[in-house]
């Protein structure tokens, strides 16, 4: 009776690999032990026995190592044992040399590189701390930790199934982190991956995908932000403003440089920067503006440059009433050819393909600026500076429409350069 039940049980198990593994490894299943086992062995179809045998081998090895790691984990008394290695490696600075030292330390410790997966995971985690998260050499060094040629499948069956899945996954992790930081793998990476995992393994596939997509996306942004943003607020304001203006004729003017000075009376005077931009077109628009209508200073509006957020202010007018929009061309304007035809025919519907994206309902923008502070006094200085080049502004009423919101947020998070904490997921998107 017992024999029959065991037999049924074995058959069930042979159906699924996972379950079989459980069955084979399970030491807590007394019914598999004992004499009845031999009986069941003979009754189960031959094919499943073989595959189970192969599986059992690899899984046994795996489990054995797992046990050992667990043992050492207990010995070290920590769940992430390799963090310590990194702590030990850096004596002074956390830099590339220190990181490399840690990796070398691990490699020297054991020829068989026991625990390399855990070490690699720890290393990946530690990279930003050491500031090497964008260093291709370091990634290659990390990949070099893997033992070579051990995980390369030797026959078609190994190749067919996920050979050494944890190691492959770990390799993919390394590549994924490279991907997230936008690091392009090179020939050496490929060489290492081939040595470690062999052709057509998952990490190699990942590598191929990276190599396919990365070049395509490298220059996808038509308005690239420089890799390292300037620290000087004036320089930062300059590139930001040029970026928004998107007009090569636009001229940046520094109305006021940041300055901290001690006056004679011993009082500290701080002067904040005011940087503005205006294009000749905008100047012309402003010159044609009717001075009886007010112009508005509005802001602050945020602009994100990678992880940095800056704020800018605009000087704008109200949308023109439709009757003033029409520009009448003087018939005596062009010496050589007529500027308009005296015809009673309009454009046909099919050829009318124009729509205007530049003409926004908010009205024309006359100038933009960035300043160290968003209070009216500071911005008034900007307007004062603008009056030098735009005389009409001195006759035009200027209305300040300032919202306080984002200013406070910026003040709370960081100082001048406006470095802000961003959620991790968003952060990653930026990196790409």
């Amino acid at each position, binding site marked *: 009776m017992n024999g029959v039940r065991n037999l049924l049980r074995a058959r069930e198990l042979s159906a699924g690999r996972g379950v079989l593994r459980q069955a084979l490894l399970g030491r807590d299943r007394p019914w598999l032990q004992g004499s009845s086992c031999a009986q069941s062995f003979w009754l189960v179809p031959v094919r499943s026995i073989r595959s189970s045998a192969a599986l059992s081998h690899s899984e046994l090895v795996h489990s054995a190592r797992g046990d050992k790691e667990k043992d050492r984990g207990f010995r070290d008394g920590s769940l992430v044992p390799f963090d310590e290695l990194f702590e030990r490696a850096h004596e002074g600075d956390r830099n590339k040399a220190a990181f490399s030292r840690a990796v070398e330390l691990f490699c020297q410790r054991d020829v068989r590189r026991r625990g390399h997966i855990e070490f690699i995971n720890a290393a990946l985690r530690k990279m930003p701390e050491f500031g090497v998260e964008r260093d291709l050499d370091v990634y290659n060094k990390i990949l070099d930790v893997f033992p070579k040629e051990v995980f390369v499948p030797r026959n078609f069956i190994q190749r067919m199934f996920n050979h050494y899945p944890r190691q492959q996954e770990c390799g993919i992790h390394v590549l994924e982190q490279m991907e997230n930081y936008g690091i392009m793998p090179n020939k050496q990476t490929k060489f290492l991956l081939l040595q470690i995992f062999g052709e057509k393994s998952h990490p190699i596939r990942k590598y191929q995908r990276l190599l396919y997509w990365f070049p395509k996306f490298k220059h996808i942004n038509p308005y690239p932000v420089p890799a390292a943003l300037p620290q000087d607020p004036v320089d930062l304001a300059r590139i930001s403003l040029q970026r928004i203006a998107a007009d090569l004729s636009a001229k940046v003017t520094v109305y006021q440089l940041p300055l901290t000075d001690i006056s004679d009376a011993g009082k500290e005077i701080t002067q904040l920067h005011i940087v503005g931009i205006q294009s000749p077109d905008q100047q012309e628009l402003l010159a044609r503006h009717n001075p009886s209508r007010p112009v508005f200073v509005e802001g602050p509006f945020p602009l994100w440059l990678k992880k940095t957020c800056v704020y800018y202010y605009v000087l704008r007018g109200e949308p023109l009433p439709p009757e003033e929009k029409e520009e009448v061309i*003087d018939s005596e304007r062009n*010496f050589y*050819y007529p500027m308009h035809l005296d015809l009673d*025919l309009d454009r046909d519907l099919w*050829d009318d393909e124009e729509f205007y994206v530049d003409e926004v309902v908010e009205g024309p923008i006359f100038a933009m600026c960035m300043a160290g502070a968003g209070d009216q006094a500071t911005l008034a200085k900007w307007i004062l500076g603008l009056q030098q080049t735009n005389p009409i502004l001195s006759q035009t009423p200027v209305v300040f429409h300032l919202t306080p919101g984002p200013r406070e947020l910026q003040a709370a998070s960081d100082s001048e350069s406006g470095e802000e904490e961003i959620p991790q997921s968003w952060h990653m998107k930026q990196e790409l």
Partner: protein
Amino acid sequence: MGSAAALPQELLRLQGEGEQQGREEVFPYPEISNEELEEINQFVGPVEKFFSEEVDSKKIDQDAKIPPETLKGLKNLGLFGMQIPEEYGGLGLSNTMYARLGEIISLDGSVAVTLAAHQAIGLKGILIAGTDEQKAKYLPKLASGEHIAAFCLTEPGSGSDAASIQTRATMSEDGKSFLLNGSKIWISNGGLADIFTVFARTEIVDNDGAKKDKITAFIVERAFGGVTNGKPEDKLGIRGSNTCEVHFENTKVPVENVIGEVGGGFKVAMNILNSGRFSMGSASAGMIKKLIEMTAEYACTRKQFNKKLSDFGLIQEKFTLMAVKAYVMESMAYLTAGMMDRPGVPDCSVEAAMVKVFSSEGAWICVSEALQVLGGLGYMKDYPYERYLRDSRVLLIFEGTNEILRMYIALTGMQYAGRILTGKIKEMKKGNVGVALEIFVNKFRDSMGRKVDLGLVGKDGVAHPSLEESSKKLEENIYYFGTTVEGLLRRFGKTIVDEQLVLKRVADVSINLYAMTAAISRASRSISIGLRNHDHEVLLTNIFCTEAYFKNNYAMAELEKYAAENLDDSIKKVAQQVLEKRAYICSHPLERTF
């Protein structure tokens, strides 16, 4: 329409009204009387002799100056007053005769430009819009060459835009004179001239009392004071001609020296510019004829592989090209001059513009090809060819750039066609079934291969039967051009002003049509009266007409398409992207991303 411009005329003919009149404008080819011919031949001899013996073009080019004795010789020949009436001491030449002399004068670019700046634009204002007193006062000295004239329109900030002229003339308190202030640039003869035609802004009180700035033309003598000029500009070509800045500082100009009315300067400027262009056709033709002689000499003597250069097909082709261009240029120039010489005040400004565009571009191509025949020799400063190349480049630029003139040609034609066709198109757009059906039936008949007969050949035809093929091609082009223009008006209406790529094609087709007409008309006359080598003319005409016919068909096929299909969209987009970055934006071919 006493003188229909060529393009409108073609459209007129197409419309079936005034058919006779349009044809009579250009057929038969205009002739001058025997007396006039004799008279002009009397001039041609000495002038030719003077240019071949006394004018040292190489030295003029090197020194960037026309020597005084050469200028004196030109004055003695009366060449400074060619079109000034005899009563004022000029030669009183007709436009045709002026064009004939222009052929010879053009043998030296610097001299030609100096003379043209003097009389084609410099003193033209006095001639066409001046009062009798002004004419009596200034023309005699200008005709003798004692005074040289210059035309001052261009300013640092103003080319063709009248609104950006900054030179200002303010009326003095007693109302007797104006004070002139401002600077003009690139003034031909600016350093030599004693009399300037200056355009300046003046304040005018409108009928309704509003003050407004308008352009006024003035005759300014250097003797008025306050006139200074900069140093002569160093130029690529026409180096011997004097070009410099002219400054006016509180120059006092009496009210009598206003040309036309105060505030009427715009029209004066336009008329001067429009009338000065026609002579460029004969001038370019003269230059090319000379070039053909010089290069043919070389091609027939130089041997390579025991064969003369003239035996090579590719060299022969270049000579044919030069001959065809020269022939067509000449035909257009003298047809236009002849039309301008008709009684009345015919307006041939569109034709003149077509002549200018065609001949300047033709001259540039021909000089370049002539240089090619000579190979390395043409590139050397020891030979005159490189000078011709440099000199001829300016033809495409001055007196209105070819781009601007194309707009003028196309828009004037469009305006004219629009006046005739507006009613019909509006009817159709309103949904008038009759008109729509008529258009549809016409289109259908066109697509079935319509025979176009506008009566150029056949019974009562005006073209010679030997030119039947070419005439048929011209007729067909004219007919389809009419339908194309109608389609364009229907599609774009008055907004066609902004469609420069479309207008350029319209202008090109118009120029070709006018050129074909001129060549056929001239060749027909030559055959009919038995001029020497008229069979050669037939060949040239047929070559040109066939080529132009295919070019026209291509241009018209493009015109019928929408912007996405005829590449206009892509062309604009590329330009936009390049101009946005103000650079060539492609990555370098050696660049890599991985």
